[in-house]
């Protein structure tokens, strides 16, 4: 029983990390209608930014603050150069183009940072561990990270539901023409959304860097799990992504211990189950 509770706690923690990575994807997908396979690369960008900036500044949070605007600029540039041409194209061309971006990003990473795994230190004031049960402790940074993820999730939901820019984003999701009729330049709205999606993925990569090592392909595992979260939550729904990520995290943690043979199928089985009951995901419109 105690083990199950600890696993649920683990699942929630893991789920919050996934949420941070998946939230950007659901925004970009829901609002821009773009299937972005390069989302994992943005996570990787964050991880390597954390590596470089932490070694320069000595603090992961400082690095994240510096890295976020870089990621935003990077996302905006990618949107301007490539992605904006895809809004009216079908999903297949988006898949092909963003796949091409992965090839380029991975190779660029290898040229810039090399192939060895690296580590990013947690700040000294958060480097200890707290005892959880007799035998098991939790690193303070991991707990702090959980708090940060939770705070970011709440901030995001506040922005989406309570602010003018959030209203515009929600309007843009359902009706691009309407936003333009109201006198807003949807091109900038779209660029902003894509850049925010990039920054969210990068932020996830940066904040997770101290608990994760930084290595080539670090973003790849994030990609598919993020898509699963997006589908479970309902495309474009932040609230859905939040619950979906928690569900995936908990299912994964419990599955590894109680259904070890099926652990790698767990998340897919969960997705299939959700889609069987709600074809549009938890908070999505039915397909």
């Amino acid at each position, binding site marked *: 029983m105690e*083990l199950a509770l600890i696993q649920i706690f683990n699942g929630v923690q893991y789920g919050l990390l996934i949420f941070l990575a998946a939230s950007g994807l659901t925004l970009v997908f829901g609002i821009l209608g773009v299937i972005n396979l390069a989302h994992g690369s943005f996570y990787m960008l964050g991880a390597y930014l954390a590596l470089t900036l932490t070694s320069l500044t000595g603090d992961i949070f400082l690095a994240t603050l510096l890295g976020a605007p870089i990621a935003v600029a990077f996302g905006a540039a990618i949107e301007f150069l490539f992605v904006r041409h895809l809004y009216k194209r079908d999903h297949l061309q988006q898949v092909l183009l963003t796949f091409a971006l992965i090839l380029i990003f991975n190779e660029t990473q290898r040229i810039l940072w090399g192939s*060895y795994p690296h580590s990013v230190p947690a700040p000294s004031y958060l480097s200890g561990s707290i005892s959880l049960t007799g035998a*098991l*402790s939790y*690193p303070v940074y991991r707990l702090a990270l959980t708090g940060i993820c939770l705070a970011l999730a709440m901030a995001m939901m506040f922005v989406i539901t309570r602010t003018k820019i959030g209203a515009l984003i929600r309007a843009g999701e359902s009706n691009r023409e309407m936003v333009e009729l109201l006198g807003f330049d949807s091109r900038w709205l779209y660029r902003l959304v894509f850049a925010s999606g990039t920054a969210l993925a990068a932020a996830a990569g940066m904040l997770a860097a101290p608990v994760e090592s930084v290595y080539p392909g670090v973003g790849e595992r994030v990609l598919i799990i993020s898509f699963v979260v997006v589908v479970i939550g309902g495309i474009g729904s932040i609230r859905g992504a939040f619950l979906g990520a928690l569900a995936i995290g908990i299912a994964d943690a*419990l599955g590894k211990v109680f259904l070890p043979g099926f652990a790698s199928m767990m998340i897919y089985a969960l997705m299939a189950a959700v889609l069987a009951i709600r074809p549009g995901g938890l908070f999505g419109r039915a397909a």
Partner: protein
Amino acid sequence: MLVDRRHLLAGTGAAALTAPFGRFAIAQGAPIKVGLLLPYSGTYAALGEAITRAAELYVKQAGGTLGGRAISFTRLDDESEPTKATDLTNKLVYGEKVDVLIGTVHSGVAMAMAKIAAEAGVPTLIPNAGADVITRAGCAPNVFRTSFGNGQVSYATGKAMIAAGIKEAVTLTWQYAAGEEDVAGFKEAFLEGGGKVLKEIYLPFPDVEFQSALAEIASLKPQAVFSFFAGGGAAKFIKDFAGAKLNEKIALWGPGFLTDGVEKAVGAAGNGVKTVLHYADDLDNPQNKAFRAAFEAAYKTSADVYAVQGWDTMAVLDIGLKAVKGDVSKRADLNAAMAKAAFDSPRGPFKLSASRNPVQNFYLRELKDGANRLVGVAVKDLADSTKGCRALT
């Protein structure tokens, strides 16, 4: 320097045309083509690079020639992608028509490669991939391994753990062939020695979310954990293990891949991790000292076990080529000579078993302050099983 030498050799080849044995002389003059099928991108890129560097260094130190002939390397990136493995091997064997094939790191890729190499008969040396079957049931007279067998390393690890007085352990690895082979080898030695395996935990490959496994380990309270991970996953596991403070009560053991290449990345979290491997950086023998110094001088970075494997691969090839005086068309002689290879490697005494897998010492090391320190010899001259091999020498 190298260019000049090639130039010179081409000259001798041309001059030899007029000699009575013209055809043979041309073959002697042209460089021996050595195909390197290794990962130069993706997760294992660092390993491929280390192996390549050591191999190139070996040839350079030998004056650019082995067995009297120049060596030219043809590199091919295998991306550690098994679906491309057969095609890329074909490219080297049939397209580039390499005289000797060297590769690779990823076991799945190596299986595909070894299969084609066995069919084609091209002399092949495996500088890393440890899939047991390659030198057991799937062995072939022209396929050599200069690294280790998965079960061999873990068997040695199990022995060392018994010797350290450990009676109860939990195993943890990824659910894939190498992981299962490692656990099998470990269990063989550990159960023989009277140990008890409390639980075998497998995580989906290549999942690096270890918290739930750590919680389970904490609840099982074993004396030690035997874990097989490598690269980024290994670094993350060591850090998470320490972060959960399990390292204060439970010893962390594993084959040396757990700590090699990630010593710096894990930092203080890795202190006390004990691993067993066929190499240790600080082995006190002249070959190792010379090799490390030369590698450091050439590439401004430290050699690792993968570099040693690359080096020894060329040493085995060197012995074979010397025996046939550089005539790679005498494949049977070349293979026979390589099978008898015995020399002092940076890793200690090296020879090949009847199924062409190294018979070698395994060393117990302890990770401390970013370096694997040699503790002692765990098992001396350990040979891997040759079970199922129908082409014993």
